[in-house]
């Protein structure tokens, strides 16, 4: 995150135009983008050619339908992931947790909740760092509810989930997820702020003396930001690709073999209990977005209702058991319970709303 001045090369050449290395780097990124675009456009014809000519599957058969789905969706989603994770990685180099904290410090509730929800999307976050981040926010005087808005938004609304939703469901569902996820983060944080839950934060958190400002902000060159984007691709895509492949493979199986309308009775709009059931099943499930979304897409196709499906995804991605265990270090059980309860209610409302409207 920090590249101290002593290490970064003193670069007089950069002042007077591009250095050779910078030009080479720009060229490499441009070539990579051209290659990406070419690949993206050849996936559809290539997957059809592979399915129907090379493998000789007859169009319309179940196997062909499943194989074509798999061969098209896997490369498409992986390509989208690479591009978006890279861009988000570059954007995130501007939003370090320290800067986010500085932006949030001194905000009042409501406006603070909205800002925290939005910053949750762009600030790099790993639930492994949830505890130091929580303490850092609280020590900076950021209200508890605003901190919680951030902690709900950061894992729930993430670029991997949005890419998969965009790739498999289209931009409308991705936008719905983004909008409703943000709304839940903002509203839940606000509600919990009103509930005066500060006394359920472990007391030692308030007694800490926190060293301030030692994560110094330093000048980061654009080249370093691009390097962060590449690093994000290596780390995130490297970690989630097996889940993407496995999820799409299961999805392809359902796509090809499960009869249409199979789930209409269980997960359809008419089954009122399906939304709470989806949340109840989803909360203890811990899967990343990459694995769950392709399966859910296939379920939607077989008659599940969109609201139920959205509720399920949010419960799986947004409320994860490991994160709650980590947060238990700083939050006492009543606050954890309130956290799960309020967010679950938010998800339920979203689920019912979409089942009623769409």
């Amino acid at each position, binding site marked *: *995150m*920090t590249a*101290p001045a*002593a*290490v970064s090369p003193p670069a007089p050449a950069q002042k007077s135009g591009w250095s050779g290395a910078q030009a080479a780097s720009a060229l490499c990124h441009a070539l990579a983008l051209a290659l990406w675009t070419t690949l993206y456009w050849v996936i559809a014809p290539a997957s059809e050619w592979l399915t129907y000519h090379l493998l000789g599957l007859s169009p319309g058969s179940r196997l062909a339908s499943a194989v074509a789905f798999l061969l098209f969706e896997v490369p498409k989603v992986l390509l989208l992931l690479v591009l978006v994770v890279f861009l988000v990685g570059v954007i995130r180099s501007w939003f*370090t*947790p*320290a800067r986010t*904290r500085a932006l949030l410090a001194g905000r009042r509730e409501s406006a603070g909740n909205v800002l925290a929800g939005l910053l949750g999307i762009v600030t*790099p976050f*790993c639930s*492994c*760092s949830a*505890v*130091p*981040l929580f*303490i*850092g926010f609280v*020590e900076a005087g950021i209200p508890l509810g605003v901190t919680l808005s951030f902690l709900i938004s950061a894992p729930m609304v993430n670029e991997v989930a949005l890419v998969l939703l965009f790739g498999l469901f289209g931009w409308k569902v991705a936008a719905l997820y983004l909008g409703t996820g943000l709304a839940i983060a903002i509203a839940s944080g606000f509600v919990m702020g009103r509930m005066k839950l500060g006394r359920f934060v472990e007391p*030692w958190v308030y007694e*800490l*003396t*926190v*060293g*301030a*400002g*030692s*994560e*110094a902000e330093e000048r980061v060159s654009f080249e370093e930001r691009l390097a962060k984007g590449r*690093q994000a691709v290596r780390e995130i895509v490297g970690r989630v690709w097996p889940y993407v492949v496995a999820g799409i493979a299961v999805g392809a199986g359902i796509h090809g073999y499960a009869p249409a309308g199979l789930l209409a009775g269980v997960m359809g709009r008419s089954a009122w209990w399906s939304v709470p059931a989806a949340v109840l099943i989803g909360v203890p499930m811990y899967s990343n977005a990459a694995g769950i979304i392709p399966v859910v897409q296939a379920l939607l196709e077989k008659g599940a209702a969109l609201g139920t499906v959205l509720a399920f995804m949010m419960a799986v991605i947004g409320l994860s058991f490991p994160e709650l265990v980590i947060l238990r*270090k*700083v939050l006492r059980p009543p606050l954890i319970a309130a956290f799960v309860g309020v967010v679950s209610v938010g998800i339920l409302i979203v689920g019912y709303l979409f089942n009623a409207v769409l």
Partner: protein
Amino acid sequence: MANAEAAAAATGSGASVEKVEDVREIMKFGVMTTPALAIDGKVRAAGRVLSPTEIEGLLRS
């Protein structure tokens, strides 16, 4: 951790490396993202694992 030890050995300074795991201790450094690296009590990097070469550069500076 291993990288820091390798870097400390490479500089030949006999520096000792300590892994801080207690959240309270970590917070005293004002760090919000782990892993972080502090040299002589001053945080030099947070949120990523540094290569031995990078740490060596920090130690020598």
